[in-house]
């Protein structure tokens, strides 16, 4: 007798179905996580940074803190991301880190000039260092180029060495060494 069409499903159907279900499940979880991440990036004020906080959320939080005037905390967070392996991301971190230092340095420079020499000099040098690192990673970062040039412009001139007030002559090194009273050994 000639059999009529079988109603059973081929084994390939089951294999393909299982594969597609697994991929769908995986993609759904991934999208859910990305959505949660985007939510945190969009609202960094609600985020509490912990050891497990993703770098991009820390970045958003640092940016938020910097704009809120908490530059010290922002610098701390940016610094924690400085060695990230994603080079594009690292370039962004270094750019913003340099901006934080330079903003602070420029503020003091414009307010006090050379009177605040040490602070301005330190902040500007750090900014220059991070701009250079950022530009090494991404030479096309024109904003970093502009800001680095500005950092060069406001770099305070090196302070002159104070003149020695030593008036005497030094015929022998021993004559300047402190010794025991009375010339004892």
């Amino acid at each position, binding site marked *: 007798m000639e059999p009529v069409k079988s109603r059973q499903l081929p084994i390939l*159907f089951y294999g393909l179905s299982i594969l*597609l279900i697994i991929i*769908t499940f995986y993609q759904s979880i991934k*999208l859910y996580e990305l959505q949660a991440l985007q939510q945190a990036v969009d609202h960094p004020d609600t985020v509490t940074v912990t050891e497990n906080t993703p770098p991009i959320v820390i970045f958003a939080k640092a*940016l938020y803190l910097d704009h809120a005037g908490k530059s010290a905390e922002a610098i701390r967070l940016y610094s924690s991301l400085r060695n990230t392996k994603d080079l594009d*991301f690292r370039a962004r971190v270094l750019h913003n880190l340099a901006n934080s230092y330079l903003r602070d340095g420029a503020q003091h420079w*414009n307010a006090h000039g050379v009177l605040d020499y040490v602070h301005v000099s330190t902040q500007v040098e750090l900014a220059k260092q991070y701009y250079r690192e950022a530009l090494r990673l991404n*030479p096309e970062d024109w904003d970093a180029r*502009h800001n680095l*040039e500005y950092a060069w412009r406001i770099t305070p001139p090196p302070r002159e060495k104070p003149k020695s007030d030593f008036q005497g002559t030094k015929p022998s090194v021993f004559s300047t060494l402190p010794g025991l009273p009375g010339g004892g050994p």
Partner: protein
Amino acid sequence: MTTNQSASCWVRFSQFSLAVLGLASGLTAMAELPPPIHSVEISSPRDFGIVMGETLSSEIRIKMEAGYQLEASSLPQPGSAVTDFLEVRKLAWDRQAQGKNSVFQINLTYQVFKGVREPELLKVPAIHLRFNRNGHVVETDAPEWGFTLSPIIPAKTPDEAVILRGDLDPPAMSRSSDWRWLGVCLAGLSALAVYAAWRLGLPPFNRRASPFVRAASGLKKLGKQPATPSNFRLGAKLLHDALNETAGYTLFSGQLEHFLVEHSEYSQLKPDLRQFFIVSDHIFFAPNNGNTPNYSLDPLENLCKKLAHTWGKQR
């Protein structure tokens, strides 16, 4: 003289200076070349309008006797600083044979980190190169060359008036590829579900519905057309298909008894079924034997309805 005019004069002066400098250094290099080296040339695609952070490249071509190897350790390495404002970013070199000579081509890319308030002529220092052939070392210098570094911030802008460029936003998270994958997977699953429904006769395909109901529906449509032998054959085939599907095999008239034993629920319709097979045999296998059957599809439709009714009672 306007600012633009003075700037263009400056650029022209710089270019002229560079040309003179390049010529002079080229001549000097030619005059001092050790015997196996025939020429040392250096060129740059652009040596003006360079700004802070920009990369500038140079190409050094050295033509010399064949057989010499360039000692790579004599070349500046990527990442190293050649001056306090110039770093090497890339280095690539190769050697090509040209008859009895070899031509070394060294491509160096530098990055400049120097802030200036006005265009400034800067120097890329000479590079000391060493070649070796069987222990015989030859040394030469690729001459220094100059480029003009220009400011990005206009020269006359006071420091207080410079506005810092802003921070960078977090990198955008692209989800399009994930959505695409999810869409593809869902489409694939939908296609598999449709396939399974078709294969198993699930809604909307309803192949689980009585095959006789479907056959009766087909017969009703056919019944609206003229009662011709060809239409009758189509109608009979519909009923045959329904019987075959119910039986699970192709049911011939000789197997009717067997079928009725297997599906005793249809026993009461045995005369009608027998009659159908007689008519079917006649119309399919002996259409010209003289007896002209009634080509109306009504009897077939009625039989289908009875069979469908019995099928429904069984389930």
